[in-house]
């Protein structure tokens, strides 16, 4: 069974192994044991906090565990707030209009405006799934388990959350936006800038980036074309978030122009439609005993428990829609760390599965 759970101290080696596989451009996981250990410490501290009434500096890093092998095969995370320790930068794609009635000319010119508008907002981040496990809706489980956590503990997050999506770059890691804009101001290469940023070192952005708006119409076509566009490998992830109600609101990454997607927590489909019900441990109807994994029928449901420190989320299939109670197998209940009659939160895996 595939289970989402908070990362724990024993996961360092596995996390390091995953970090090695992420590659350039994935700045939130770098293969450096000290940094990863710090990240684990932060996550453990965050999940251990009780009585949180508003978001602070928590970092809820979770992992996807294959219970049959005990392997960690993916990560996903939520930062309670960004930008409070180090400034968080983005470009806002705005509009400046220049019009002359006398000449009959009217130009609405897009501009990039450097800002820290996301300061203090919650961010969903650090989504990574090992290549061998990119099937059986594991990607969806990994991404959406976070919404189950947010639905259960909204006081730990801001009303609005966002996600940064990787922008366009070619096989050699060349980003068209960086080449025509960032490069002129940084005198270092994209990779170096990206690494500095990932280490939380952002002062140099304030020091080196132009603080006046940049006229987009003066950028080369190839740079204009990538504003708000995601890397081709990120297209499915973007679609997934958009189906959940996330929207591109004209904020892009200052380096590669990748879009930020945002949503109000209460408007996220998986949050809005999720509901609490009681777990009945027993034999679910429509599932024959002994039927192998991956051979079930019916709709997919995300099921999570209602615990912070021992948060768990799994994906199940049921042919009969659950009512006020949810019948779970003993294995499922074990994976969810619950006993009979404990509350669980459920939601249809995707908006189309109802």
């Amino acid at each position, binding site marked *: 069974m595939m289970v989402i759970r908070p990362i724990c101290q024993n996961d360092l080696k596995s996390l390091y192994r995953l970090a090695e596989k992420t590659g350039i451009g994935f700045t939130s996981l770098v293969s450096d044991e000290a940094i990863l250990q710090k990240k684990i410490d932060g996550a453990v501290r965050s999940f251990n906090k009780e009585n949180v009434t508003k978001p602070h500096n928590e970092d809820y890093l979770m992992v996807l565990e294959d219970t049959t092998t005990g392997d960690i095969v993916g990560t996903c995370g939520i930062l309670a707030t960004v930008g409070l320790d180090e400034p968080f930068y983005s470009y806002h794609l705005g509009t400046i209009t220049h019009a002359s009635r006398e*000449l009959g*000319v009217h130009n609405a*010119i897009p501009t990039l405006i450097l800002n820290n508008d996301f300061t203090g907002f919650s961010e969903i981040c650090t989504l990574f799934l090992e290549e061998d496990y990119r099937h059986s809706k594991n990607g969806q489980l990994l991404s959406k388990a976070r919404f189950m956590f947010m639905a259960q503990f909204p006081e730990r997050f801001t009303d609005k959350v966002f996600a940064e999506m990787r922008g366009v770059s070619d096989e050699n890691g060349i980003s068209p936006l960086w080449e025509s804009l960032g490069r*002129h101001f940084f005198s270092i290469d994209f990779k170096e800038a990206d690494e500095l940023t990932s280490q939380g070192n952002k002062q*140099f952005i304030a020091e*080196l980036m132009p603080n006046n708006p940049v006229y987009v119409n*003066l950028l080369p076509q190839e740079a204009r074309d990538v504003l708000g566009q995601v890397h081709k490998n990120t297209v499915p992830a973007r679609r997934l978030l958009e189906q959940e109600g996330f929207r591109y609101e004209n904020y892009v990454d200052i380096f590669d122009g990748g879009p930020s997607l945002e949503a109000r927590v209460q408007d996220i489909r998986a949050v809005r439609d999720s509901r609490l019900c009681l777990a009945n441990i027993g034999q679910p109807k429509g599932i024959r005993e002994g039927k192998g994994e991956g051979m079930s029928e019916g709709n997919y449901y995300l099921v999570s428990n209602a615990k912070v420190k021992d948060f768990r989320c799994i994906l199940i299939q049921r042919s009969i829609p659950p009512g006020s109670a949810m019948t779970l197998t003993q294995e499922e209940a074990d994976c969810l760390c619950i006993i009979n009659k404990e509350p669980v939160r459920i939601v249809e895996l995707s908006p189309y599965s109802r």
Partner: protein
Amino acid sequence: MYLVRPVDFADLPALERLAQQAGIGITNFPANRERLNDKIASSRRSFQTDVVQPGDESYLFVLVDTSNEQIVGCCGIDAMVGVDTPFYSYRIDEVVHASPQLQIHNRIPALFLCHDYSGTSRLIALVVDKAHQNPLAMSLLSRARLLFIARYPERFTKRLFAELRGESDKHGYSAFWDALGKHFFTMDFKKADYLSGVSNKNFIAELMPRYPIYVPTLPEAAQEAIGVVHENSGQSADILLDEGFEFRGYVDIFDAGPSIEARTESLHTITNQKTDKALTLTEISKGAIHLISAGHLENFRVTAAPAEPQVAGLALEKSTQERLGISSGKRIQWVAL
């Protein structure tokens, strides 16, 4: 021989011909008969007005080939630009972005739209027939204006500037315009250039970028054109640079041609010009060529001729006196060529 004098209505056809030759990039001299006629009218009014301090006067001069009384060139002075609508330039300023931690210290040139030349006198539109683009004629025509300024300092500001035509090819293509202005005007350089000559300049404020343009983000061809003088204007540029004009980082907003400026009192012609009596030489002068002017305002005339400075004044040939319409003993103003 050559003579410089104020323009007259009769000069309109000649001016029109010169304007057509001038080509694109000399925005204050459009090949438009009505506008040229307005310019002549305005110039005549300016010469006739009693001026206490500089205002919207505009003085136009023509270069006459006295051998056939043909108009072969023209030039002018605006007493003050930016009176009704602001006068726009780009100022090239360096923006410093430094990160001590990364040991990076970038000085990034940026173009700032400004009005810094508003309220300043401007030398305009030096245009000379190809056949007469010799050093003598060019120098006479250009420096005649400085003699006029020396004579009537109250009509001009202490600071003076001239716009030098920027790079564009014979089809009117400007790499700088193409990279910058075009995106904001959505028209070609030729048209914008023409409009800027004939219309009020509100549309510049309306359409031009309000935020600085970082030079390194422009295409290279555009970067290279900044502050570069059009090859056809090299000669007139050199005359002004020799006079003491300097480039202070201001360029034209359309073609990035440089503006050069000076304090009037530091210009060679103005510092060295002398005023005294005209004397008469009985033989042919063996003296050096001088620029010599005479006459008041509308009758202001300048010519270039050999002459001999003496204690009591400047000795001229009889023919030179005639060209200037003066006789011996009249006050004249001169400077060595």
